[in-house]
């Protein structure tokens, strides 16, 4: 099979309040911690709950020059089914631009029924469509749906084979303890809410990491981590 892809482009789509931007920071920083190259950029309109949010992460072994939104992703991550069912997306249909042999991972406990033509297009481009109960994993392992984004980070990193679990844990720690990251007013307010749910920030980090690990285990159990590892993914030039 072809050699390992030079670079991966990950497009994350969700809705306001789910932590899509935070997830992209954690994933991107995890790659950096693992000595890879990565950049990320968020995209959203006026900040409000339930409004469309996208964030883009570029991962590479070499220098990354491009900026801006990812038009041709290898992986599309859907944080909420409304992205698909309500068109809460910057691209319609949600898989627009997906590269051949790409992966779509959707946060849903059940298999989402798509339109017949959408099913066909995804089949024609040999896309792998996975469903993961990320919100349920968040409730089971952290006791709050607010950790859904950490489940998605765990799942993506398992599918891509990078960054590793230690790097993800360190990245989560850096997000919540120490220097932190620049956040918008809305995210800062949600940070206050989530911090109140846990007695200590250390517990918050631990629970978030538990969710990420659970999602990783889910992906491995399903065998979804083999797709990229076996090099079936089209080598990405951009």
């Amino acid at each position: 099979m072809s050699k390992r892809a030079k670079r991966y482009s990950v497009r994350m789509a969700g809705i306001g309040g789910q932590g899509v931007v935070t997830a992209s920071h954690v994933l991107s920083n995890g790659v950096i911690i693992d000595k890879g190259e990565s950049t990320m950029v968020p995209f959203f309109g006026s900040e409000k709950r339930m409004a469309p949010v996208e964030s883009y992460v570029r991962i590479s072994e070499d220098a990354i020059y491009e900026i801006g939104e990812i038009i041709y992703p290898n992986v599309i991550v859907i944080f909420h089914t409304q992205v698909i069912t309500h068109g809460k997306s910057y691209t319609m249909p949600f898989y627009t631009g997906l590269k051949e042999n790409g992966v779509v991972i959707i946060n849903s406990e059940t298999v989402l029924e798509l339109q017949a033509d959408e099913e066909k297009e995804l089949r024609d481009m040999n896309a792998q469509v996975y469903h993961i109960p990320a919100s349920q994993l968040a409730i089971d392992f952290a006791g709050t749906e607010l950790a859904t984004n950490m489940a998605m980070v765990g799942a993506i990193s398992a599918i891509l084979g990078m960054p590793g679990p230690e790097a993800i844990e360190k990245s989560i720690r850096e997000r919540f303890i120490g220097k932190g990251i620049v956040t918008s007013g809305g995210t800062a307010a949600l940070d206050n809410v989530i911090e109140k749910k846990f007695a200590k920030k250390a517990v918050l980090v631990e629970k978030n990491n538990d969710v990420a690990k659970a999602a990783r285990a889910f992906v491995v159990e399903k065998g979804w981590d083999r797709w990229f590892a076996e090099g079936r993914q089209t080598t990405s030039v951009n």
Partner: protein
Amino acid sequence: MSEEVKESTEPHVRKDDPRSHVLSDPASKPEDIEEKKGAAAQRVVDPDYLFLEAPREKEFITGSEAAKESIRRANVDIAIAYPITPQSETMQQVGYLYAEGYIRDYYRGEEEIGVMSAVAGASRAGVRVLTATAGPGLMRGIEAIAAWPGGRLPSVLLVMCRVVNAPLAIQPDNVEISYLLNAGGIVLHGENQQDFYDYPLIAFMVSEKPEVSLPAAVAVDGFFVTHARNWVSMPAEDLKLPMRDCYHEAVPMMDNENPPIRIARDAPIQKSNFISYQMHAAWQQEIWAAQERSKKWLSRWLRGLIEVVNPKAKTMIVASGSAVSQSREAVRQATERGLDVGLIKIKSIRPFPTQELNEALDHAEKIVVPEFNYIGWLSKELKAAIDRTDRVFAGPRVYGGMTMPTEMIIDAITNSK
């Protein structure tokens, strides 16, 4: 404000004195070392040292954080701003700097015309002033902004570009830079987070040079730079620029009997005669002459007004801002395909690097100008500056806030006009 300021163009680390670049050091009194923290612990160093010589370390941060680190080292007296997306995050970071004592005052203006007028007042009072805005905020403040150069008011304006025209959006589109081109001030266009660290510091120093004495704007494309993470290499945070030396500038501060304040008080409009025409003409000529004089300092500290990649290539891309990053990737892809393509990054839009571009493009057979705006202001500027303009392919362009797929640049390179 007791730092000692020295002006020199000599090399800054002398062999006989390895600390010769340090102009003022709070640690020189050993008894103070324990107490000094934050801004009070910073050493004032020569700009040449900070920009060109000081050892740097890399950090993976957002553009807003890069700007914060720049302002931390800029010895700013007052920051004045009104929030607008995508500028808000940066000015929030600057607010933290105020809380930490790195900025002496922070004023949240009423709205942008108030902000930009307050900037004029602060600069006229002789202090180092920072402001920032984006899109519609820039439009609202532009009356006052256009009056700054005539007032010979040094300052730095950060512009986080976004859509200005209806239908409104908050995504990056740099049409707003075109509104600054004829105002008279210096306009730098940064490509990435690294530039958003480097350019504001350089802008302050150039802006305050006696032979320049002009406001400087540092524009970057919003979100793609401000909200995105990338590598930024920076010197230690305990270094800072010398304070503004308002007593040795081109015009006296707050002197009602001398220009430029005298002109504001006794405006030429009040006595329209040949003297007022003459005065206005001379004043305008002087503003644009000052722009020319700024080239010397900008070239030195930006390491050239332009950057050239693959200088001998027959097809050259000319770009500024985010379009440069996309073009770097396009050059990489084109080279893989065996195409002969080069790239010129324009760092300074005002002053425009006319001579540098003519030299770098003399051999070019085709010139592609990708832009993140509908009107194509950069291709117009370029065509006005070079000869044989039939070589210029004025595109591709994206607008309304989307990024430019590198495929569009490759198409423009490979397709005949």
